[in-house]
């Protein structure tokens, strides 16, 4: 059984569904990458998993439990973490406090996890007393990822973690994603830099108009001429 399983998800913000039957399955060993055109429903899929909008039909199973109707405050303790596409740091709070907020649900000692995050992103350690709003875009993305890791998730969901970043930061973020996955955390991420991301994806999903168009390993998607033509810019 997969770590997370989406079966025929229909969901939306109001009465009209944006997702019209999305299917996905990710294991703890997987890096799943969702690609697709603007407005395809990629962010909506992650929000639906995270209980941030109304799931009208279908089921979501996470870690063996039906989580279709659960909200974020229940999902985080179960081991699900989410880095939204935008506004993903507490700008008025320091880097350190941002990380602490990621561990809000934990009552045990968080210093070990803090050390791990600072080791992963040494830039952040130097800036830990600085408000996150004063950091560069790349550093903010690191804060956002660090915050999500502080709850010790089993599955980490990232919405366009490389958006707007320089190639240097993009590569750094991708490297960390691979490392986090190697440490046993399942990854489900949306990416616009599709070629680079599919290169290390164990599972790739092409979404269009709120539905799966192609599903396969990252390499299969890269090799598929239709996918390359329609979604990866030739």
């Amino acid at each position, binding site marked *: 059984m997969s770590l997370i399983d989406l079966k025929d998800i229909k969901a939306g913000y109001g009465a009209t569904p944006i997702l019209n039957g999305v299917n996905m399955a990710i294991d703890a060993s997987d890096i799943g990458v969702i690609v697709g055109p603007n407005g395809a429903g990629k962010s909506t899929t992650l929000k639906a998993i*995270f209980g*941030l909008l109304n799931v009208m039909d279908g089921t979501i199973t996470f870690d063996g439990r039906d989580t279709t109707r659960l*909200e*974020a*405050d229940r*999902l*985080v*303790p179960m081991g699900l973490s*989410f880095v*939204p596409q935008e*506004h*993903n*740091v*507490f*700008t*008025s*709070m320091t880097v350190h*406090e941002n990380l*602490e*907020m*990621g561990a*809000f*649900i934990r009552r045990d000692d968080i210093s070990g996890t803090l050390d791990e995050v600072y080791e992963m992103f040494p830039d952040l350690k130097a800036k830990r007393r600085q*408000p996150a709003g004063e950091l560069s875009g790349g550093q903010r993305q690191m804060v956002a990822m660090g*915050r999500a890791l502080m*709850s010790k998730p089993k599955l980490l969901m990232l919405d366009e973690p490389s958006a707007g970043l320089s190639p240097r930061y993009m590569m750094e973020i991708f490297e960390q994603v691979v490392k986090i996955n190697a440490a046993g955390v399942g990854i489900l991420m949306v990416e616009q830099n599709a070629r680079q991301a599919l290169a290390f994806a164990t599972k790739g999903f092409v979404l269009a108009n709120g539905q799966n168009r192609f599903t396969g390993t990252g390499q299969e998607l890269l090799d598929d001429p239709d996918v390359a033509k329609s979604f990866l810019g030739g």
Partner: protein
Amino acid sequence: MNDLIFFFNQAIIGGVVLGSIYALGAVGVTLIFGILRFAHFAHGDMMTLGGFISFVLAGIVAGLGIAFPLPIGFIVVPFAMLIAAGLALGIDKGFYAPLRARGAKPVTLLIASIGVTMMIQGLIRLFFGVGTYSFFDTQPKVLHRIELPFEGVTRPISFSEPQLLLVISTIIAVVALHYFLTRSRLGKGMRAMADNPDLAKVSGINTKLVVRVTWIIAGALACLAGTMLALDVSLKPDLAFNIVLPIFAAAILGGLGHAYGAIAGGFVLGFAETLAVFNWSVLLRPFRDNLPEWFEIPNTLSLVQSEYKLTVAFVILVVVLLVRPTGIFKGAST
């Protein structure tokens, strides 16, 4: 020198006292705004209600016949704050939470809070009538006088015991709030939710708990402010309704949602008001001989007559909204 002391007694002590009241009220307003995104108009009446709770408790304690070295109204204030915090939670659960659950807009909540204002005022009048009450029927109000050891100085620095206690308890409340917001897990969660409610939810922060803690703090501080105000002047059903405008002005001046801004805004407003109504001719009189012939010192020379002191808050509010709508302290955390 005597005139300077008069200035100190009237303007400086007066400003600190008024500023403390405004600060305690504005902190509650700003915290509620930061977490729930609506202007809690009934805050002044929660202050008045707190004053009446203390008054009832003080009556019970006075009946026990024990002599206290401090005003009984002050001794009972921690218990009154507990009750007031419970009532604030009840008001939220009864009136605002159901509206939020239905996705009501902030303006709907604002109007609901005007309803709560009327309800609280009505209930107070129902039980206590429209009269004025004093905490000092069974106890004398102690006045402190500090004589200055200078030649020719006859006027002492003077302030009342309730004023001193007000300033001390404001300092304690502000320091405690500071530690809560910057050191405790829940306090940081509160700042996180004020900063970015969606991300707070995504982080698994128990937002319902944060809302409850916000009402507990706001209710308790409102009770403290209302009681101390009633100890300083007297207790009546419209005690704090009349100062809800300067309290909102202070919160807006400090940048809504910013706790430290609200405290600073409260003191700015308090001083602005007392300085505006201060009779400046008192300070000019000693220089009578040095002033030009044609200049005659009027009997009263104040910027604003004291009946119109509320206009000070209005003017400050309007100027801030025009010049810096985000408040003067925007940028400071919380």
